[in-house]
């Protein structure tokens, strides 16, 4: 190819003395680098712009290969990727390369190339266009770094999440085993106390035995809550066995009697009005009721009665348990039904914080819910479920 020749005017307008806009000047001083490779891949023609950018003279560039202008890493990449790509599709576009300048500096560029072929398919020459891309490369690197950082953070969070979940599962399994193992000795204590009471002991011994019996009952309730919680968390869910044939009243009465035995000094007022049969899981409803009662006893004013109202009306069963005393703070209302929620009372009065959680799970399993209303002189928990 000729590297110079007669100028071809592109336009005849403009100032007579101004540099002519001709093809030669367009090639030499274009705002991009141009060079052409022979069929053997050697540079045969190169423009001024590319020489200026790289600091090489034309003579230094002609006869070299494109890959000779790259650093070693770039050469390997060129040989394994871009050279095959060029041969396969006849061109490549927007390829990122680092050209090594005469001063030994890296010049980040983007390159396009296209092959010119003869009729028989042989490569005649290949044209390459070069655009500087330093800023673009910097920006791309920043994006790549930001992405790498985000990926690393993601991995870190995932690992932490997995670790925490595993720890949580372990804790819940531990609770399940613990709860189960505590039941047996408790049953033995309960049987022992019953035996003592049957022997008609003196008043002092009988009082102590009843206290033990009350504590046993309370502890048994706590263990049941624990086990239910663990089962729910471990994926067992809360299963209920609904029984419509059994009357509800004796179930609730027994729960009241058990509480009364433990705190004979407290006044429990019960108003029961169950007119229609209700399909419930009796053991579960007893547990729910017992949890609500225990809650009222613990947090209510000891000098005031606890009022229980049970009714079936408008297709619903409602069981409400109300106590006097300081109200529940709005903040506490938010987390009342969360597992391991601890109330605001004295530490000695605290349970595990599972009572209300379990009660609400039982309510859900019956298709119902527990509402709570708390103001200056009364706090009332109401269980509502539809009568199907």
């Amino acid at each position: 190819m000729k590297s110079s020749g007669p100028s071809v005017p592109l336009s005849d307008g403009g100032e007579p003395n101004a540099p002519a806009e001709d093809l030669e000047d367009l090639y030499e001083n274009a705002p991009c680098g141009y060079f052409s490779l022979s069929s053997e891949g050697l540079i045969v023609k190169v423009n001024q712009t590319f020489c200026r950018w790289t600091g090489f003279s034309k003579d230094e560039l002609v006869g070299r290969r494109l890959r000779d202008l790259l650093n070693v890493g770039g050469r390997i990449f060129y040989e394994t990727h871009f050279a095959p790509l060029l041969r396969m599709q006849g061109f490549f576009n927007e390829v990122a390369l680092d050209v090594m300048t005469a001063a030994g500096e890296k010049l980040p560029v983007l390159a396009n190339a296209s092959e010119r072929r003869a009729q028989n398919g042989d490569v005649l020459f290949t044209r390459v266009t070069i655009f500087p891309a330093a800023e673009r490369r910097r920006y791309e690197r920043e994006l790549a770094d930001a992405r790498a950082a985000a990926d690393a953070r993601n991995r870190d969070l995932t690992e932490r999440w997995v670790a925490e979940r595993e720890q949580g599962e372990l804790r819940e399994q531990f609770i399940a085993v613990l709860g189960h193992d505590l039941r047996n000795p408790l049953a033995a204590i309960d049987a022992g106390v019953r035996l003592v009471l049957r022997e008609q002991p003196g008043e002092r011994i009988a009082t102590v035995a009843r206290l033990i019996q009350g504590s046993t009952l309370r502890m048994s309730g706590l263990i049941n809550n624990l086990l239910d919680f663990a089962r729910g968390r471990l994926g067992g869910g809360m299963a209920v066995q609904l029984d419509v044939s059994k009357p509800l009243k004796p179930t609730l009465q027994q729960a009241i009697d058990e509480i009364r035995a433990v705190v004979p000094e407290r006044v429990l007022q019960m108003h029961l009005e169950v007119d229609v049969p209700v399909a419930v899981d009796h053991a579960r409803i007893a547990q729910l009721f017992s949890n609500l009662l225990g809650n009222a006893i613990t947090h209510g004013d000891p000098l005031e009665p606890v009022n229980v109202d049970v009714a079936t009306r408008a297709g619903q069963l409602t069981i409400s348990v109300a106590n006097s005393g300081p109200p529940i703070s709005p903040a506490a209302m938010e987390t009342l039904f969360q597992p391991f929620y601890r109330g605001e009372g004295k530490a000695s009065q605290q349970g595990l914080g599972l009572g209300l959680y379990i009660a609400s799970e039982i309510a859900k399993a019956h298709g119902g819910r527990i509402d709570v209303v708390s103001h200056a002189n009364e706090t009332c928990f109401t269980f509502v479920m539809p009568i199907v």
Partner: protein
Amino acid sequence: MPLFSLKKNNVHQTGSGITPIVFSHGFGCDQNMWRFVAPAFEKDFKTVLFDHVGAGGSDLSAYDSVKYGSLDGYADDVVEMGRELDWREVIFVGHSVSAMIGVLASQRAPGMFSKLVLVGPSPRYIDDEGYFGGFTAQQIEELLEGLADNHMGWSAAMAPAIMGNPDRPELAAELTNSFCRTDPAIARAFARTTFMSDNRADLPNVVADTLILQCADDIIASERVGEYVREHIPGSRIVYLKASGHCPNLSAPDEVVRAIRSFV
């Protein structure tokens, strides 16, 4: 037995011959690398083309960074393919890094490969004491950096439709979209596996009849490296091609075909 490899390695078999000739591509592209070479063997052989996991049309979900962290993982895949397709005494043609994958596979499954054709082989790219590989460790790091830079340029290079090339009708749009396109993370990992490999100790154990095809002016696997391979594989032969560069299967397919023909 279901043929897992057919999907996993995107295996394509054609040809009317009986003896399989397996073409294995190197780092950079996929089985299209053989498109000008493989058809010449379809009359006399059963040609088998495939993509290594992570390249071309392979099942990317099968990519496992631990398994493919060494060339053994790729060699295991070749052997697995051979077992599923019942290869006995077949010919294996491996380009670039696949030359060493073939060397490893042939030792893993004695009797599976009777002949190896190694195109531009290198048992180790990084120089070592008393060994010339052609690269320093730092230069290889530069390569891996360069891969990161071509994330975006790379996908953009794939995008343009092939329509502007009426003189290359054999290039379907589908080819343009998949040829050489690699998940950048996998490309980086494969580059690391390739250029950090050292299989010099495996060369003396090759029992298959071996032909080395050495290009002129190949910066990736130079003549000195090709000579080293010839010296260390017992009974191997070397043919010097006139073709220059690292991919004679694309730049001088006729010469490659002639050399392989005279060997098989």
